[in-house]
């Protein structure tokens, strides 16, 4: 499949408005503005576009759920918080193709009857903010945003808001709270944002990549889009491949492509002299897939069938030098650090899990710690206020499931038995 979203990103000026306009820029929006909002929602539904932020929820449905009868304003909140470990696709889109995102935001607003889109970017994306702001100014100056968008008589604003640097701010209701100037902590659902979101008004929260797919749907049609991938997994998809591969990076492919192809053909395979040990296919929050499970399409449905999730499509590839106890501990350090602390199991349990994992990793664990890890993880998963809890329970559960032997070896030997060459470099250098 020819890249669609990232086709020109290697061009030095791909991010500029001039370049964008020469390459079908804002043509999707032009079409959209000539189409009834409801028809756009039907098109998005027919295209099978699913949210690229992690949950894979059908975007057309989300647009439809937005309460359109209310006299309140409606909003698009673009989730550009991209903080899931191993995930780095949205920032490429924003840095190299910002107008595509603006165009997607505007189409989304038109479809749901909003006149304002907020792009909530991650606190650390200072450089991205610079690009977005200067390009947005150009879009405003040339009539692609703001008053009378493309001469249609319709006004729509785009606001760029940079967060303060918290993973949890990417959870849709926490993002809304943060946009409102509060702590990035999630709200209890229901009500869902589509009914009561930003400033208690109907809001569609959409991932950057999701919105970037709207222009090509408008231009080429729903059927074209749906046919790019397997059933219900249409469209182009960006994959972030990191870890022990020869060519880590962002790759655009159809969801017909297998994980194996992505790792071995696109990313060049495992680094020289090493073997694949495990893959986390959807950002750090999903279960591990083993080497013999990778010959499956990298689609939402196939990965789920294999027992994991496509999530944010951040594929973390690990070779045999990776100690799974250490990997779980490292991830847990992230989760306990990023827990927002609002609900009890995640706030208290995450830190407890990390302490136990660190103790085992140091070689001071006991066999009963393994039951404790399992029990605490199960007590977190499914019991928390937001999906963070499920994410945080995953690293210990999935590593224990597939690599229990490594845990037992740590406990028995009092040290790591995995031939981990990076250890020579010192943990601090590698871990943080």
């Amino acid at each position, binding site marked *: 499949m020819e890249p669609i979203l990232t086709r020109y990103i290697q061009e030095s000026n791909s991010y500029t408005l001039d370049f964008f306009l020469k390459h079908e820029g804002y043509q999707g929006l032009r079409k959209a503005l000539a189409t009834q909002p409801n028809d756009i929602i039907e098109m998005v539904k027919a295209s099978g576009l699913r949210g690229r932020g992690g949950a894979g929820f059908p975007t057309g449905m989300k647009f439809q759920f937005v309460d359109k009868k209310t006299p309140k304003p409606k909003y698009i909140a673009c989730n550009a918080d991209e903080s899931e470990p191993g995930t780095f696709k949205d920032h490429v889109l924003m840095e190299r193709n910002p107008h595509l995102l603006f165009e997607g935001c505007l189409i989304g607003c038109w479809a749901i009857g909003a006149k304002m889109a907020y792009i909530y970017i991650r606190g650390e994306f200072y450089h991205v903010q610079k690009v977005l702001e200067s390009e947005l100014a150009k879009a405003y100056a040339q009539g692609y945003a703001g008053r009378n968008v493309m001469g249609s008589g319709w006004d729509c604003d785009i606001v760029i808001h940079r967060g303060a640097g918290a993973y949890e701010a990417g959870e849709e209701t926490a993002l809304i709270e943060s946009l409102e100037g509060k702590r990035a902590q999630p709200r209890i659902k229901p009500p869902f944002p589509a009914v009561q979101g930003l400033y208690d008004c109907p809001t569609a929260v959409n991932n950057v990549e999701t919105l970037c797919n709207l222009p090509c749907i408008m231009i080429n049609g729903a059927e074209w889009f749906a046919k790019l991938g397997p059933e219900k997994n249409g469209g182009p998809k960006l994959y972030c491949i990191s870890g022990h591969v020869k060519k880590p990076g962002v790759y655009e492919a159809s969801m017909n492509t297998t994980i194996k192809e992505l790792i071995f053909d696109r990313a060049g395979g495992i680094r020289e002299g090493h073997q694949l040990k495990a893959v986390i296919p959807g950002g750090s929050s999903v279960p591990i897939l083993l080497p013999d499970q990778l010959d499956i399409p990298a689609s939402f449905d196939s990965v789920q069938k294999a027992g994991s999730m496509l999530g944010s499509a951040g594929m973390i590839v690990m070779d045999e030098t990776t100690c799974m106890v250490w990997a779980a501990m490292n991830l847990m350090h992230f989760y306990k650090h990023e827990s927002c602390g609002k609900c009890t199991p995640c706030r208290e349990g995450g830190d407890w899990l990390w302490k136990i994992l660190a103790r085992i990793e140091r070689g001071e664990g006991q066999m009963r710690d393994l039951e404790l890890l399992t029990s605490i993880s199960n*007590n977190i998963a499914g019991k928390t206020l937001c999906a963070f809890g499920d994410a945080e329970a995953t690293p210990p559960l999935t590593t224990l499931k597939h690599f229990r032997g490594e845990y037992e070896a740590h406990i028995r030997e009092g040290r790591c038995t995995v031939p981990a060459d990076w250890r020579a470099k010192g943990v601090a250098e590698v871990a943080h």
Partner: protein
Amino acid sequence: METVTLTIDGRQVTVEKGKTVLQGAIEHGIKVPYYCYHPGLEIDGSCRVCLVKIEKMPKLQTSCSTLVAEGMVVSTEAPDVVEARASVLEFLLINHPLDCPVCDKGGECPLQDFAYSFGPNESRMEFPRRVFDGEGVKADVDFGPTLMLNRNRCILCTRCVRFMKEVDGDAQINIVDRGYGSEIATFQDEGVHSLISGNLMDVCPVGAITTKDYRFKSRPWDNPEAIDTICTFCERGCNTTAWLRAKPEWAKGALLVRTTPRLNPDVNGYWMCDIGRFDYHWIEGDDRLHRPLVKMEAGLQQPADWREATAKAADRITAAGTGSLRFLISAHASLEELFLIGRLGSALGTPEDGVAISWRAREKPQPADTKFKVPPIDAPNVNGARDMGFPVKASSDGRPDISAFRQQVEQGRVKALFVFDPGPPGSIGDVSWVSQARASGKLALLIVQGALITDLARAADIVLPGASSFEKDATYVNYQGRVQAASRALPAPGDAQEDWQIFVNLGLALGITLGYTDSAHVRADVAAAMSSNAAYAGLADLAFARPVTAQHWLQASNPSERWKWDVMFQDLPPVKFAGRPDPSSIPTVIPLTERD
């Protein structure tokens, strides 16, 4: 009322539509623990301890945030619910200091109680606990003028955060930092500065927020008696509970150890203000009048017995001419007292402008959009006085306008003045002009009946010691026009008497037979006199609380949640919960045991 019927633990229950599963469970005596939920605050869904299983829902649900629905099938006892609940309690306890023996909340602590009934039997935590400001009571840090904060005990339920935001109207408390490091804080550690700060102690489900006033003072089981009453310190008339400490004769210190709010959705909700909560110390303070005082020739006030003082008062009034007696009455006078003053006045021939009603009014500093406004008028019965036909004149700022009356006194046109002031210090408003008139000789006779030795009482020729509103059964009409009862919790100090009694005796000495032997009879006559006013219909039947001796200390526990204790905690510590109590055995009211 639209209702829905659902099944909880196999029991069909009918609940008002729009309520949550948790509320439905509580109403029907089905035990579900909760921390972040508070009936007076918005839903947060954060503590996760109220998890229940609902048929057709894949995950356990927080009952506090799930609305009841027709035909819903809920289980609070399924094994996965029991386990999840226990695990949340385990999580809450792994970092809790468990210093219950030195914690003010001990004995009335939902964390203790729920952990006992639903928590795991032992902890699996092997790492040092999280510590914030220090270990033990050293961790208690200043949290503003009225409160202390112990962050180690905090379970981050955010009830305090939401109280300040939603009720106080000034969001002074929030959580700083995040995750495991989250802690309750105020801007630059300034603490809470609010006129309703004491409610934070009530809403806090643990001993993290305590009041300086009650700190280390008592234990719930040392306060076996509690009296439901109302606060009379302003015209709102918050419904409250007065707590009495068990105290041997010889022990020092006060009987009254605290007042806490009592739920009345129409008057005060779950709340009361800090004036009502903390400014009660005068009641057992050093300035109380214990004996009648009579001024001697040399100008010194000497203690006297009642017979002597009343006779003296009657003699002096008669000498001045009974028709010349004038009355300056605090709006702290109850309906009964006002009625008796009215009867005395008409028997003596007091003219209509011979009576003035006075009070103090002051705007209270509060956020503009507070949900709990403390009214400016510091007296409970301005409306009662008005209803009973007394000349109540107020200026636009709420202050009494008694200028004409004052002029009469200052111009020497009043020969004898009777002042009645049973309220807290200063609550009658400015009366310095009375003392001045007496000192300058413009006023020849001043009789003061009241609770405290004030400047005014010091200037008086005769002082008659009366009772505070904690020491008598009396009724008041609050700012909404609602007739409410304040119940007797304590005896008046020394020889001091309930005020209705003093009026009756003074009447007798003046040859006027009012003919009452207790305040209930006075009240019955007030009710008859006011029968044309519908608001007074229930007056004669108003129930007065008697000190409750709880059979179990929990029954007289934290009143803001007492409805919960009443229905849910009949078998609680030290007996661990085993099975649901038989609903028919659950008393809905605390049995009253009259104290002799």
